[in-house]
């Protein structure tokens, strides 16, 4: 069936307008089908390729699905203890101030186990980039409830939905961090549609370029899906994310050039 539509006159090397970047190792990604991690990996690697800094960049990936990043990113990477990526990145950046350093963390890692490291690294104004993938769940271990799980959201440890009376309220760590003086750039993006992916790539580029200026932490939250943990198909989970995650985690810049961005009030359904 495919052969009918093959256009051999276009399918030539000089006509390639988009292909997978060589900075991603040539092996299949081990993430679930439709997982946002793959897109963020590729956008990050494309940004490094465009800035031509792949030999000057050191990534830190802690525990979670994000730990697999060093299997696929063809740059220098270090594995950190669970939640301790900002502490390790602090050391790397202080020892090699001319390197570009980023951490790549999930929400169970950054917002639960590594809260102290994250907040203190941001408060000290360390000069590295944090990429935070928020899917509202502990994806790797089987979909347990994370601090970022929405009220009423089902997970394997909150099978009747998250009850805020007994399980507490979801933690908006990005807004929390934006109020710290050491943080220079905070934004929240998504990767489920082409336009959002392009915006995420711009945000990553902006964050990495700001490392040259020694202004402070750049923090990029990517609201992503976890279709395996949410027990949905990838397309369904993207729709669910638009309907439920985005009202609670509104997309857009939160802090630009060290100043909080004025936002319209968003009514959150409880």
């Amino acid at each position, binding site marked *: 069936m495919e052969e009918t539509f093959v256009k051999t006159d276009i399918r030539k090397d000089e006509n*390639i307008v*988009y292909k997978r970047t060589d900075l991603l190792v040539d092996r*299949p990604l081990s993430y679930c*089908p439709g997982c946002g991690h793959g897109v963020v990996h590729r956008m990050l690697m494309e940004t490094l390729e465009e800035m031509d800094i792949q030999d000057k960049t050191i990534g830190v990936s802690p525990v979670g699905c994000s730990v697999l990043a060093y299997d696929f990113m063809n740059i220098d990477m270090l594995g950190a203890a669970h939640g301790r990526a900002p502490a390790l990145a602090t050391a790397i950046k202080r020892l090699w101030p001319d390197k570009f350093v980023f951490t790549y963390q999930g929400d169970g890692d950054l917002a639960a186990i590594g809260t102290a490291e994250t907040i203190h690294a941001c408060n000290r104004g360390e000069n590295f980039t944090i990429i935070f993938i928020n899917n509202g769940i502990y994806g790797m271990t089987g979909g347990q409830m994370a601090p970022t799980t929405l009220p009423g959201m089902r997970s394997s440890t909150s099978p009747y939905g998250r009850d805020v009376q007994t399980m507490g309220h979801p933690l908006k760590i990005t807004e929390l961090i934006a109020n710290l003086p050491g943080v220079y750039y905070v934004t929240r993006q998504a990767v489920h549609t082409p336009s959002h992916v392009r915006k995420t790539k711009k945000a990553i580029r902006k964050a990495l370029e700001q490392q040259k200026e020694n202004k402070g932490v750049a923090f990029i939250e990517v609201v992503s899906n976890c279709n395996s943990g949410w027990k949905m198909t990838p397309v369904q989970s993207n729709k669910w994310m638009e309907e439920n995650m985005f009202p609670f985690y509104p997309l857009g810049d939160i802090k630009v050039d060290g100043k909080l961005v004025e936002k319209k009030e968003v009514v959150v359904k409880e």
Partner: protein
Amino acid sequence: MAKIKGDILVNVERCKGCEVCIASCPFSVIAMSKEVNGKGYHFAIKVNNDCTGCMNCAIVCPDGVITVYRGKVSE
């Protein structure tokens, strides 16, 4: 008259059949195959010639399996 047309090439063995590209294509060029690849996933295939090479499918593909071509064709 020369026209700009696009084409996609899917790395069939790497495709995991998540169907995110289908939702992102503005011209409904992509559909899922009836066959499965070596891992048992239905993979994305091109089903018509309306592709303009906009790269939406390739950008949104989590596994980066789509290569996009764009060039002039004479009709």
